[in-house]
């Protein structure tokens, strides 16, 4: 029943994001019709927007989902139900993750079908070469990382705005920090979701996924020990 409530709380936002993810590539293709841009750069543009759209959706879904459950005004209602706080944290997170993956699937499908109309090999750009599955997986993992980070911060701070702001600061600020550290101390900080040191791509992807889960686990610990 709680699963249903989480879905009920976020479904309108989910549908808006879903429609946006479904139409972005077809609309872009329609606008660029006759210019040849889609044929030459479509695959590459799709790969870039796939990650960007998902990160934006992840931020939105995380803040909305977490604040509905753990906001100051309604947390007392939830936390006086005879279920552990860990249950509420993970179920609510899972619902948002499911929505994020559904949006990713629709976005990918819509992009792929759109590009298919212009080329027999939709995920290959004559200018930049093929779009690899690793690039798409990286985009997806970045979205999951961002979603988990924003969800956890929103739940811990009990404020959608603060959680969103803090998550955006970390997600968009970390690359700049890494550049500064490399420039000043010649140390390579790992940036989500790029490969970590000498680890293989799969191991790096798994590590970043694990980091994302770690955020939720930390949120669970904080919420379990927090006072309402």
């Amino acid at each position, binding site marked *: 029943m709680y699963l249903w409530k989480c879905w009920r709380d976020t479904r309108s936002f989910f549908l808006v994001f879903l429609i946006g993810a479904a139409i972005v590539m077809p609309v872009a293709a329609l606008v660029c019709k006759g210019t040849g841009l889609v044929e030459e750069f479509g695959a590459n543009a799709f790969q870039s927007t796939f990650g960007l759209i998902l990160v934006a959706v992840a931020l939105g879904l995380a803040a909305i989902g977490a604040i509905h459950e753990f906001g100051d*005004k309604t947390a007392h209602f939830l936390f006086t139900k*005879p279920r552990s706080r860990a249950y509420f944290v993970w179920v609510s997170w899972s619902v948002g993750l499911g929505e994020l993956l559904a949006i990713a699937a629709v976005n990918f499908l819509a992009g792929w079908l759109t590009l298919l109309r212009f080329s027999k090999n939709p995920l290959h750009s004559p200018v930049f070469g093929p779009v690899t599955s690793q690039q798409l997986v990286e985009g997806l993992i970045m979205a999951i990382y961002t979603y988990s980070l924003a969800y956890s911060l929103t739940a811990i701070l009990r404020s959608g705005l603060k959680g969103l702001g803090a998550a955006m600061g970390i997600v968009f600020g970390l690359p700049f920090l890494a550049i500064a550290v490399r420039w000043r101390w010649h140390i390579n900080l790992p940036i989500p979701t790029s490969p970590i040191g000498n680890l293989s791509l799969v191991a790096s992807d798994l590590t970043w996924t694990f980091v994302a889960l770690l955020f939720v686990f930390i949120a669970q610990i904080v919420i379990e020990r927090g006072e309402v």
Partner: protein
Amino acid sequence: MSELAISVNRLTKVYGDVLAVNRLDLSVPRGSIYGFLGRNGAGKTSTIKMLLGLTRPTSGSAHVLGMDILASRMPILRRTAFVSEKKTLPPSLTPSELVRFSRGFYPTWLDQAVEKYARLLEIPMNQRFERLSNGNQTKVFLLLALAQGAELLILDEPTTALDPVSVDQLLRVLAADAADRGTTVFFSSHQLEEVEQIAEYVGMVEGGRLLMESRLDDVKNDFRVITAAGSNLPRETNSQVLSVEVKDNFYRYVITKDGEGYAGDLAQNGATVTHVAPLSLREIFLELVRKEKLCTSGNAGETPVLSSSSS
């Protein structure tokens, strides 16, 4: 099985520099309606939050339905219904959807109670919660609590923002539910007239401390105000004399027990007793709070806590 629905022993809660609850003791008998009285900021909500595991005590202990609040949070929540001081629920859900959501958590859920109270309290069940009036929002809380089939109902300021008709409706429903199912009702309030309507027991707190806990009838029977005229009459307060006001040769005593006996003693000492009358709960509360303030201003911690006049 414990005879007490709630038993609190020297419960203390400190938020930073603020002592919200100070060595509080409470005893709420099973099946009773207990009014937990105090001004805003007296420590009522903090106490309730500790009972429900929403916040942890700094020290002391408490048992709800015979179970320790720290060790048995889940079993307590399964058998306890709660109406929060903050009357906010997920805003986009309708009362029907809130019922659908809440039902799954409680094996004792009563569907017939939902129908009964929705009709009785005239709740629009298919309107989004955020669009309901304040009164109806409170009623939805109450409906969810009553339908839970809980043994203990904890209500934090349930009548806030309600009009007099709704207050009356709500109090009737609470009293009827307690009578029908033997539910224990523990409700906090600073609306003393409402408490007086339905409570069997009262506990009064001020500054996080218990001022008095007793059966309401006993409080009303025991407390007396005596006005007397005379010279050199006693001015000391003690466990029987709560307060003494003197103006010229006129004395006003508030007596906690055996008022008639005390009036007789005054008469024997040459006083002319002009008036012996019972006090309303409101007057008793004001007297106790005033006494507490007088004592705590100069000798914090020395205020004598009136023990139950009977149980």
